[in-house]
């Protein structure tokens, strides 16, 4: 449920690092807590964010939830597919339901993120 190749935040985002680009999404726990996701708002390509900045919004039928940047950097891609089919975030949170790709600026910011085991421990 919490893939080991990802890192996680307290706010239930995950990142997958490939070179200097990180893919960002929300965890299975987060999508399950939110329930049916009906709307996703994402930033534009080339927008800059600091670590912890609100960069998007995920809305379920009942809840509006901000998405925060796990690491600072520049948006290189936003997932257009989830704008049209927000339920991808429910059905495949670590795959087709990814949200943005960010070129991160400071690798040391990763130190504050959790591995799968530590993240899972915060949920219990």
């Amino acid at each position, binding site marked *: 449920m919490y893939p080991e190749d990802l890192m996680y935040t307290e706010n239930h985002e995950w990142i997958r690092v490939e070179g200097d680009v990180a893919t960002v999404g929300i965890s299975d726990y987060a999508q399950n807590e939110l329930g049916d996701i009906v*709307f996703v708002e994402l930033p534009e390509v080339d927008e800059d964010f600091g670590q912890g900045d609100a960069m998007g919004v995920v809305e379920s*039928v009942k809840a509006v939830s901000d998405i925060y940047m796990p690491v600072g950097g520049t948006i290189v891609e936003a997932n257009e597919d989830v704008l049209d089919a927000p339920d991808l975030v429910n059905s495949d949170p670590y795959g087709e339901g990814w949200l943005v790709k960010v070129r991160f600026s400071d690798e040391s910011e990763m130190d504050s993120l959790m591995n799968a085991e530590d993240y899972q421990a915060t949920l219990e």
Partner: protein
Amino acid sequence: MADLENLKKTPLLETHRKYGGKIIDFGGWALPVQFEGIIEEHKAVRNAAGLFDVSHMGEVRVVGPDALAYVDYLLTNDLSRIEDNQIIYSPMCYPDGGTVDDLLVYRVSGEEFLMVVNAANAAKDYQWIVDNADDFDVEITDESPDTAQMALQGPRAEDILATVADVDPAEIPFFRFRDGVDIGGEKALVSRTGYTGEDGFEIYCAPGVAPAVWETLMAAGKDMGLKPTGLGARDTLRFEACLPLYGQELGPDISPLEAKLNFAVKLDAGDFIGRDALVEAKEAGLAKRLVGFEMEDRGVPRTGYPIYDAEDNEVGHVSSGSYSPTLEKNIGLGFVPTDRIKWGTRLQIGVRNRKLNAVVTKIPFYKREG
């Protein structure tokens, strides 16, 4: 997990846990917001059937020689229009025309009425009903703690109930009720009413037998698509049907005329609390009125978001808004000045830091066929 220790509990809480209900604090009550998922449950009610626990609703019984006169005086609707075993919907107003609550009244006889009120207002309503009764010979009893309530809603509701009730539910017309119905060996009052925009029944019974009645109905509906349904779907269903929710479409600052409930406000059928104010407001022209709108830009309208006109003037607020599972659109209800209520009027909804385009549309958004 929500801390449920201090919440009020319905007799069905353990049953909800068994069915996988996600229990939340709902206005001080521990109730399931969803089981499988709000959208799945919503669609089950539109296409087959759903079973809701609405035991948090309040019940107030008014009995006595003046019961008819008193209930008629309390409520904006005309109680002389209903017979025994019939039900009427009505707002209940303050003298200034603001709304105390909206409710269903069950006429047992000319000397006995059961008022079913919103959970959040139950204590306030009971006090209001007691406080205004001085000149009437009536006895008023709060029966909320002694009453469980379930709602069996959807196009298959009648078929499901027919398999387990000793009364043919087809013989209970819309807004009529039958008391003493046997459902799998337990006695219940069954009314053809609901809060979803679908056909269906509301079933009242003693708290102790509620789990048995629930299980009987679930078993009866197993092969007819019946699902346990939570309060999340109840809200999206009532919203599509534009049934008002107290606190959003009604409140102390909202008159039933502003909420577009004219059909339940009979200004020419004798006096009632709030009548003078409502007559005056109607003659002077209402300050605001409920409208429905559909989003044109991407975004979900939510309760409290500001409404702007096409020239960026703030003109009102959203009372309810949601993604509509039936229409697959983002839609909303809100209050705006009466010169902005025509279909096709351009509005903008303030969503976070942006103004998103919307257009006034016909309501209700959803109306069942037939």
